[in-house]
């Protein structure tokens, strides 16, 4: 064991003034010593280092179903009482928890990237103007999604109880991810002779920002509608990427989205398992969300821009490009239905607006 004297020898000295050396030292009260709920904890690093989840041992791993404490007491510390509360609204585990949050947090940190230096921007080359305009329009809309994602999540973070710090910490990674997403797509729009495009429609964004009644309902819209759709769109953009710059961005963003979607789906699963009565509000949120999404999709801008990208230009957009767009939409719908099945949510394709139903789409559009 290192002794205090040993320790003293290895620590650098601080040169004190004569006045400081003569300071009268008050008698310490030391009333904070020997004050703990559990002592003797010795978590050792594993093969992934010392992770957040590995700290959940003994009393420190007890995560209660309710956290009524409206102060910033760290979980496992002795709390203080009698202080004015802070504005915490989400105090039940069922309202925010996902068992994978701590692991996702560490993964997010390990997979960090920087658009400035991890993308080889010099490798980009001029594209035909119609394609460049289409890519810039898609970038504009993805930037707008990212801006809204940040605002949605940050408007909730401070309302979450500190007893569930794993979720709060994971969400901090998601807002930085969204910030980086905005940055990367803005850079792409401004690097290759183009510019930003036309503002996108905002009905889904409105749903997300105005969904102030519950985090689980917000997550439902944010993940099952916005994030899942964007994830599928980026996968298609990657398939039709025109250069390594775009491919790199799409690959990195896909990883970021995968974590967000995992948290969201696992949170909804946890919420449904522990509060089955939430199913009603989740289904209602989905139904409203799909109406909003339907309204956004009536706008031709994103659809046409994607079709141009997928079709290799305006001419190709009228045929192959638009068919790929609808194939992409169908793939999104399938992933949504798969997620609903995993969550045991009774959602069928017939319940969705006709534009999401391959067989009914034609009648919806005429």
């Amino acid at each position, binding site marked *: 064991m290192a002794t205090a004297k040993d320790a003293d020898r290895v620590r650098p000295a601080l040169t004190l003034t004569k006045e400081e050396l003569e300071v009268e030292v008050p008698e310490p009260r*030391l009333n904070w010593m020997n004050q703990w709920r559990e002592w003797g904890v010795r978590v050792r690093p594993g093969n992934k280092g010392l992770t957040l989840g590995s700290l959940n041992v003994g009393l420190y791993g007890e995560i209660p179903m309710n956290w009524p404490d409206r102060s910033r007491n760290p979980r496992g510390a002795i709390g203080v009482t009698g*202080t004015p509360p802070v504005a915490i609204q989400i105090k039940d585990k069922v309202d925010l928890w996902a068992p994978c949050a701590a692991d996702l947090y560490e993964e997010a940190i390990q997979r960090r990237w920087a658009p400035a230096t991890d993308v080889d921007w010099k490798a980009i080359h001029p594209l035909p103007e119609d394609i460049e305009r289409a890519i810039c329009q898609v970038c504009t809309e993805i930037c707008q999604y990212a801006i809204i994602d940040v*605002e949605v999540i940050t408007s909730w973070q401070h309302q979450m109880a500190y007893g569930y710090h794993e979720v*709060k910490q994971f969400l901090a990674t998601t807002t930085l991810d969204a910030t980086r997403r905005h940055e990367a797509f803005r850079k792409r729009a401004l690097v290759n002779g183009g510019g*930003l495009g036309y503002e996108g429609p905002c009905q889904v964004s409105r749903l997300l920002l105005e969904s102030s009644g519950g985090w689980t309902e917000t997550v439902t819209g944010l993940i099952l509608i916005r994030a899942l759709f964007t994830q599928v769109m980026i996968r298609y953009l990657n398939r039709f990427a025109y250069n390594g710059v775009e491919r790199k961005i799409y690959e990195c963003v896909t990883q970021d989205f995968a974590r967000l979607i995992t948290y969201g789906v696992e949170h909804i699963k946890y919420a449904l398992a522990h509060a089955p009565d939430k199913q009603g509000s989740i289904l209602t949120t989905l139904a409203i969300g799909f109406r909003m999404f339907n309204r956004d999709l009536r706008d031709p801008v994103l659809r046409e821009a994607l079709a141009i990208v997928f079709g290799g230009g305006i001419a190709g957009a009228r045929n192959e490009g638009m068919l790929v767009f609808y194939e992409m939409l169908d793939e999104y719908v399938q992933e949504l239905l798969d997620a609903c099945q995993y969550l045991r949510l009774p959602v069928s394709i017939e319940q969705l607006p006709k534009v999401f139903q391959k067989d009914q789409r034609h009648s919806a559009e005429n």
Partner: protein
Amino acid sequence: MDQQTHNGAEFELDLGWMEKQGEWNTHAEPSKNGLTLADIQVGFYADTPEESRNLSGRPRGAVPRPGSMPIGNYTVRTKSEIWLENASFLYEEALQRQWSSATDIPWDTIEPLPDDVEQAQCQMATFLTEVEFVAGDVPSRWVSKTSPDFYEARNVLMAQVMDESRHMDVFRKRALVNGGGLMRATGATAGFVGGIDLARDFTEMSSRLHLSGEGAVLTIFRMGELMAYNDAEKAIYRLCAQDEARHVAFGVMHMRYMAANAPERREEIESYLDEAEAGMLTDAANPAGQLNQTSESLSIMLGGGRKYFDEGFRKLVSIRKRQLQEYQKRVTSAGFGDRFKNGRSRLGQMMANVAN
């Protein structure tokens, strides 16, 4: 929706949006640090409005859509309320200097410490976990209220939230890695009037959080070599200091911008500084302040054990002086140095009483 077919006929396209794009022919060029936010400040896209009318979350420079609903809950829509000149730099640096508390700290260098020193380390780690919570939550809340036209400043704040999240976890890890545990919370960040949480104005919040609060913590982290007993603790303090320096820089640069561009608010800001100074040594959020829970644990860490408490306390007094001196330099750099000459600041008196 346009007429579509699945039977071989072509889809009709509108394409009207192609005429509604922002400034075209933009060629941002990567610099030696890659393609940074500073590098994409070109032409029209570099223009930040003095007053933002963007209420729908569109990216700055995109063409507004008539009829967009004002869905953004933006109370910060004036540039001087949030702006700073070096936001792009701070954000890019933050991304480059992200680190992992799981793998970048040499945890295996930690060895058992005498019980009094371990208790002091754990008490300080408990306190720092607690205060890092507020430093993450409050900037996050302000981002949701800030127009995306000021995205550079928002980006720095989002990087700060990530940094604070990592600080929370690294100090929790420190408390639980070496045979100790978490100790007693202080309540330092409760909802008191004048607290960081309750500020109604961004600059007011920033003066409390970045300038005085994090400034005081930065001085402590910079003294980390004096409090560390192994390479793991040294790495923690060094990396946290690096992050904290960016957060403090945000506050200083924002206040400098505010001083230069909103002179009508100078007196108001002086009031924030009066309040911040009044609490510098008495406020429980300063780990070197007068709260015995933190000042005594720091003294034990600095001295090398309970037996050397007096020596540690004298070092603590020296650190308090440094906190005040560094605060003075920051406020001067922000453009409010006159208060130290015209008698408004009480820093001189405080300097004389740091031992109390």
